[in-house]
């Protein structure tokens, strides 16, 4: 009975569809007859228009190129301008940004590599690029990027982008850290410029902290570095001091940890002394908290990258007027020469399995070497171009703010743990814990660094 009922319904459905089809056809036939003459008359025009339409459709047919990363989270106006410039130059490309939180990006990329669902352009930092390259997830960019652009990269930049001799990512912005000094606090403390030597630095830290409190009664600190347990900030922000005392994390030749060297012991001794005297701190504090301290006029000195000018204009609420509140210079050294720094960079890469690698390469080429794009980023965020041709541009050469960071690049430096891309988090975590243990728990410096040295060797050997 049920089957019969179902059959009847199916038959009714099919028959009604047929009638509907016939009706449509009849209607269409009538229309065709009526329009017949007109169609013939404009036949040629229609054909021509058709061809034009087809060619127009070909041009308009867009390829969606996805850019994954945290760019839009801190540089939305730049991202919008970048999109406009790319789409203007390549009308067949539609640039789509997929926002990710910076902290999660590294893990996200590895998950993507494992699942095969990857973006076209991966916005990453050098560590992430190396980590992805270590699992063979990145394309060799020398096969996709124009040889002219690659040749335009300074040798050191090109070398930094290699992983096992392959160009796995390309820098579009180099951001070395530099030392920012609160000009208002330093002036009150009797100084007219930033410190050049480590001795001057120490003296200024004590002098600024000696101002004691601000107008609201909040404590004034001389210097601080941000970072809690498990974060990369502590080793990264301390690295310029380690380099400029003559120390390092690993021996450049043997690859063995050298974090218990006398130079590093000296750095730790200095920071422990400053912490105990209440001029270095508050420890631990997160990065935003540290920036706020400086913006509120409660911190004398802080290490940050070129993006910081824009951030302070924003968080101080004073826009460009806040530029008068600080000086920026290269890190101090024992002899007063420009100090080495932490060389941070923003890179771009193409992941294996990207849907549109050809178009992705065009986007990356613009990101790295198109003067409009690169100089827009420089204007908005102070980033230093990676290619020589734009580094020579007057906008870069004549800006005293940017020139400090160019000096910092020339002074050299590195990313701590850079050769051990996949181990960077456990290495950073071990370092941060040792540093905080010395500062907060009075752990003996030599013994703690000896243990850290052993730990670092173990982590690398794993």
């Amino acid at each position, binding site marked *: 009975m049920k089957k019969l009922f179902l059959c009847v319904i199916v038959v009714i459905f099919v028959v009604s569809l047929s009638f509907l089809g016939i009706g449509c056809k009849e209607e269409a036939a009538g229309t065709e007859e009526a329009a017949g003459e007109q169609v013939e008359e404009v036949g040629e025009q229609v054909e021509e228009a058709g061809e034009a339409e087809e060619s127009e459709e070909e041009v308009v047919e867009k390829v969606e190129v996805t850019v994954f990363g945290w760019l839009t989270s801190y540089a939305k106006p730049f991202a919008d301008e970048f999109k406009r410039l790319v789409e203007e130059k390549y009308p067949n490309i539609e640039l789509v940004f997929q926002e990710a939180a910076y902290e999660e990006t590294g*893990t996200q*990329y*590895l*998950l993507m*590599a*494992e699942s095969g669902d990857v973006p076209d352009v991966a916005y990453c930092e050098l560590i992430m690029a190396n*980590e*992805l390259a*270590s*699992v*063979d*997830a990145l394309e060799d960019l020398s096969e996709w990027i124009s040889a002219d652009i690659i040749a335009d990269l300074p040798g050191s930049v090109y070398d930094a982008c290699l992983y096992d001799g392959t160009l796995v990512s390309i820098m579009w912005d180099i951001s070395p850290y530099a030392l920012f000094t609160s000009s208002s606090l330093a002036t009150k403390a009797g100084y007219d410029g930033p410190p050049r030597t480590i001795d001057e630095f120490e003296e200024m830290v004590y002098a600024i902290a000696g101002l004691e409190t601000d107008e609201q009664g*909040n*404590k004034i600190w001389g210097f601080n570095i941000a970072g*809690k*347990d*498990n*974060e990369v900030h502590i080793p990264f922000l301390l690295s310029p001091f380690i380099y400029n005392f003559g120390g390092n994390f690993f021996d450049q030749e043997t690859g063995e940890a050298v974090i218990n060297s006398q130079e590093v012991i000296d750095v730790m001794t200095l920071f422990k002394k400053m912490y105990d005297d209440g001029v270095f*701190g*508050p*420890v*631990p*504090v997160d990065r935003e*908290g540290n920036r706020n*301290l400086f913006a*509120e006029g*409660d911190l004398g000195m802080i290490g940050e990258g070129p993006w910081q000018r824009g951030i302070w204009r924003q968080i101080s609420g004073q826009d460009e007027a806040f530029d008068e509140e600080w000086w920026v210079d290269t890190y101090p050294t024992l002899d007063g020469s420009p100090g080495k720094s932490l060389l941070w960079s923003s890179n771009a890469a193409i992941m294996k399995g990207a849907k549109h690698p050809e178009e992705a390469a065009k986007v990356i080429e613009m990101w790295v070497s198109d003067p409009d794009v690169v100089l827009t980023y420089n204007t908005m965020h102070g980033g230093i171009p990676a290619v020589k041709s734009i580094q020579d541009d007057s906008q870069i050469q004549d800006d005293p703010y940017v020139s400090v960071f160019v000096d910092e690049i020339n002074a050299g430096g590195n990313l701590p743990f850079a050769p051990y891309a*996949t181990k960077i*988090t*456990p290495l950073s*975590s071990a370092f941060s*814990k040792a540093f*905080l*243990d010395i500062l*907060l*728990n009075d752990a003996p410096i030599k013994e703690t660094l000896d243990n850290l040295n052993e730990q670092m060797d173990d982590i690398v050997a794993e």
Partner: protein
Amino acid sequence: MKKSNGLYKKNTSFALKIILPAFLVITIFMYYPIFNSITMAFQKIYFGKGEFDWIGLKNFINIFKDPYFFRSFSWTLIFGLISTVLLLIVGMYFALLLNREIPFKNFFRGILLIPWAIPWFVNAFLWLWLLDVQYGLINHILVILKILKEPINWIGGSDTAKIAVIMAYIYRVFPFNTLVYLASFQTIDKQLYEAAEIDGAGKLKQFFYVTLPQIKNIVIFTALLNFIWSFQEFETVWIITKGGPVGATSTLLVRLYDLGFQNRDFGAAAANGLLWVIFLFLFSIIYLRVLFFRGDIDN
């Protein structure tokens, strides 16, 4: 007989069809991940490559070699015990307070739920700011009241960081306890209080000899829930201290996250997780068995 068999079969098949979608969903999203994480505990996983090696018990052996595991384990237990006791006391105090006839009682009962209702990470950020060494309200008040000479760096010391985390956690969870106790008070027969009063029992005696025995089961179960929840606590610790300083406030879950998502050693993280679940399972069984054995739980 034949007829009822047919009906049974028909009903069984209908029931299976109904259960199937839910079963599939649970299998895919629960049983499979559980099974997968158990197998991961015995693997070395090369994250990003989709490859792994079977390494037997090495992940478990490494856990026991890791000094931070024991630190995390002991702190998790201490955190669980202290927070459970404090939740009982604070929750009960507010429940008793709101059970009395006070003006705007319903308003206060509503207000009480706010910490429980707001997202947990918001609560953690709120406490992070309240405890700030430079601009935090808590330091400010304590200095004004001359309880402190100068602001404390709450998250800068091992002990103060522990206190900070416990305070933030208690603040978030106590409304649940209060609400449950408040509801259980309504089930107590008023005549018991009248009888106690006639016998000359004061408020304190009424509480210990009437109220507490009457809501004993509820108190035991909320305590068990609180203890288990404390093991699951992550947001408060992560946002306020990131498990620091120097691992002082790192719970097992923070350590697990640290191993898995920071160090990307998912095998070690899975082994940690497995140990954690086994411990919690054993603890719950022993706890309930002891209570049943002692007859503390009636049904």
